[in-house]
């Protein structure tokens, strides 16, 4: 059996003897005897490292790995540079706890401060926190931070990711606040104005939205502000390299799913909740925030700051209960952004967009395939697709994960990682099935 207990049986007896005991069970004298487990747990016996490796590899082998992924919908298959895989695996980064002891945690604290700065640059916002769990919880936390006594209703675009909408709904159910979903027409948010009643605290829009479409984010922001509410934009961070930043669109809070910034698909997690806001909302931001200060000798130092907002001080009056966040994912995202640089990130965005547009135009040359929604899109789009199941099965057989079936068609995605040759091959397979 495997074990990570270093003390030998003899040492354990010595330690027990020092306590005047013979058996470790004596340590559990406070546990009512009737409750103590009498037999062994109904679990397999412990295994050696070699056996565990074999079993874990066998589990991984039961999954199908696709060489070409044309599916996004909230999880994107971007290229991850080698260095972005290696550095977060350093044991110091991996095994440290939350940096409460600043003197021996400057490395983590500085990495978060750098991450916060990069998120501010990407979004154009004034302040960023150190991360929350994922893009969906970031949206839910944003809704919470925008509420006040007079305004408690949250609006969210129906073109946002279904998991984001449902997560915000769940958080609203928790506190007992209303959530209203804004209708969608032609694949974008519609009829927002009518819903902007005086009790609305915030409106959440996703850019690009779940269908890949570009929302008229500036116009939506203007409507929200006219109604006296706060504007929350949920953005794909890669797209921000070329799309108008939340600040340029008038957002009060910018959130987003940080997975595209160097994190693997990993069947959904761990991912990264990006969250940034205007200066005005700084003290309402939930979660940890790192600040710069000095030590007694005037040296630059980083600390967890503004802790008076947080649960360990405010308890039931805190705006959020978050403590553990996604620090290592934030470090990874910062590392990814530093590795790619401004030009590299713009290149990822431009190439993803170019390849999606190429895929779209090639697919739409086929009979029965057409875009479902008009208007501009970034790197995802919805098409009609006859014989959908047969097409996706044929693609799968060829090692290609096709688009995601959604209402009215299939949601396709392309990133910089796929080559023209791969796209041509995918389109040829679709053509063949449709012809057959």
């Amino acid at each position, binding site marked *: *059996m*495997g074990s990570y207990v270093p003390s030998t049986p003899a040492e354990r007896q010595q330690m027990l003897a*020092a*306590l005047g005991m013979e058996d*470790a069970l004596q340590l559990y004298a406070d*546990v009512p005897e009737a*409750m103590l*487990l009498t037999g062994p747990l109904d679990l397999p016996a*412990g295994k050696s490292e070699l056996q565990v*490796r074999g079993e*874990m590899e066998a589990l*991984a082998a039961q*999954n199908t*790995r*696709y060489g070409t992924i044309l*599916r996004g*919908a909230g*999880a994107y298959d971007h290229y991850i540079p080698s260095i972005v895989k290696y550095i977060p695996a350093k044991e*110091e980064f*991996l095994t*440290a*706890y*939350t940096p409460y002891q600043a*003197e021996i*945690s400057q490395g983590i604290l500085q990495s978060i401060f750098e991450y916060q*700065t990069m998120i501010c640059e990407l979004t*154009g916002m004034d302040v960023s926190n*150190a991360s929350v769990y994922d893009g969906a919880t970031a949206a839910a936390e944003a809704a919470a931070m925008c509420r006040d006594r007079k305004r408690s209703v949250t609006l969210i675009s129906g073109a946002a990711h279904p*998991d*984001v909408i449902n997560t915000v709904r769940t958080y609203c*159910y928790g506190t*007992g606040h209303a959530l209203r979903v804004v209708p969608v027409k032609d694949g974008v948010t519609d009829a927002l104005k009518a819903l902007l009643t005086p009790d609305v605290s915030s409106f959440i829009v996703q850019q690009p939205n779940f269908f890949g479409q570009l929302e008229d984010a*500036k116009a939506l922001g203007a409507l929200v502000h006219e109604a006296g509410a706060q504007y929350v934009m949920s953005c794909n961070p890669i797209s*921000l390299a070329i799309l*108008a930043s939340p600040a340029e669109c008038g957002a009060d809070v910018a959130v987003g*799913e940080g997975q595209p910034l160097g994190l*693997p*698909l990993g*069947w*959904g*997690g761990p991912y990264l909740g990006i969250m940034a806001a205007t200066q005005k909302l700084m003290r309402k931001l939930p979660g940890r925030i790192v600040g710069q*200060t000095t030590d007694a000798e005037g040296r630059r130092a980083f600390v967890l*700051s503004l802790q008076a907002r947080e649960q360990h001080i405010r308890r*039931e009056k*805190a705006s*959020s209960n978050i*403590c*553990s966040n996604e*620090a*290592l*994912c934030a*470090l990874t995202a910062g590392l990814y952004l*530093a*590795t790619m*640089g401004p030009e590299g990130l713009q290149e990822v965005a431009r190439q993803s967009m170019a390849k999606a547009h*190429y895929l779209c135009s090639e697919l739409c040359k086929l009979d029965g395939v057409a875009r479902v929604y008009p208007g*501009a899109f970034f790197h995802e789009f919805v098409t009609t697709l006859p014989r959908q199941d047969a097409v996706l099965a044929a693609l*799968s057989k060829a090692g290609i*994960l096709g688009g995601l079936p959604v209402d009215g068609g299939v949601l396709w995605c392309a990133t910089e990682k796929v080559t*023209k040759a791969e796209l041509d091959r995918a389109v040829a397979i679709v053509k063949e099935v449709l012809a057959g």
Partner: protein
Amino acid sequence: MKLIFERSVPGRRSAILPSCDVEAAPLDEAFARQRELRLPELSETDVSRHYTELSKQVYGVNCGFYPLGSCTMKYNPRIDEEAASLPGFTGIHPLAPEADTKGCRAVLDEAARYLCEISGMDAMTFQPAAGAHGEFTGVLLIKQYHDARGERQRTKIIVPDSAHGTNPATAAMCGYEVVNIASSADGCVDLDALRAALGPDTAGLMLTNPNTVGIFDKNILEITRLVHEAGGLCYYDGANLNAVMGVVRPGDMGFDCIHMNLHKTFATPHGGGGPGAGAVGCKDFLKDFLPRSALMEGEGRLQVRAFAGNFLVVVRALAYLKTLGREGVPEAAKNAVLNANYLMQQIKGSFEPAFDRVCMHEFVLDLSRFKKETGVSALDVAKSLIDRGMHPPTMYFPLIVHEALMLEPTETESKQTLDEAAAVFRDLYRQAYDDPEPMHTAPHGTPIGRPDEVKASRTPVLRWRQD
């Protein structure tokens, strides 16, 4: 050291992507970014050196003894990391068809079997991304249960005053009024205070057992019985599960739902503050309220985040559970408790335990007399430990003990490490009486001294700006 932005040189870059092999897609000006994108410009060498330098200013479990109470800083096995980096896990899209993700689903099923058996629960979700997120999920189970029964008058959650701050914050996020009840002298639930707090408006009780001072509440069956009698449910905060796993089960203590911190009890790394994973288990009658992803599994249920959870963290925990197995799980718990009691016994005689009795996996030192006599605070001792190569214990928690230092050695430390740590504590105790001055300004051998936190808070500098 330099910030990454201060290393930036205009025009410097890494060669990562080939040039684009399809025609560029035009972007309408109305949608385009006007604002300059000011990210650092670096070579790969610059990036590598920068992060290596950062890593040298971090103290991890791999660096040395890390007795941070309530955080269970046990060794993080490397095989678990390798398992989580298998391409058959990392490369799987969360929305890939069910038939393509049999391995991922088997990981969750198998991990659920282990954790249900250990916790005494019937069903498990892995959606929550951390302990506090698990608490939120668990208390939402309680809320949905009462709502489904039309008992909306149950508006209060009872939380002992010794609880971690997340408990009351969680209850508030679930729309509940928090009823704080005082603890008895040993940090356990005061049964009279509990009886007085219970009523037709009670939704439930949030409790950790062993409690936050490291003592197993021997009245636990009576506590859960009283709550159930009043129509409330009992939530188990699994923060301290490492003390009892495989020895006694929360399900057998009368709890209805529980969260477990995979990043504490099941050895997945803390990553400098996350990602964790907060598996939530419940008894059969609550399982229809467990969250699930609308996109993966259909609408109609609540969900606390996107997709299935911090899956790669669950992979690590499963590799750990497979390694320990039925004998290793209780062995870990018993040795965690043995190590804590042994360390406490070795320190006793200098610093005083707040509760001089057998503890579970952690114990609290009360430095109030010591501070009165020497002027040296718990903070000073904690900072002095840094210069002796140790990570400090948790400071000033739980709130019910003044000048508290809370130590949790975990089972993965050897007798030698504990003996050496105890010697350091005894030595610092003596130093406080002989030569306290340096302790007030410790640590001395670190890249920075104590940072000015007041300044950080009064004049917040939360991002770098070019001068």
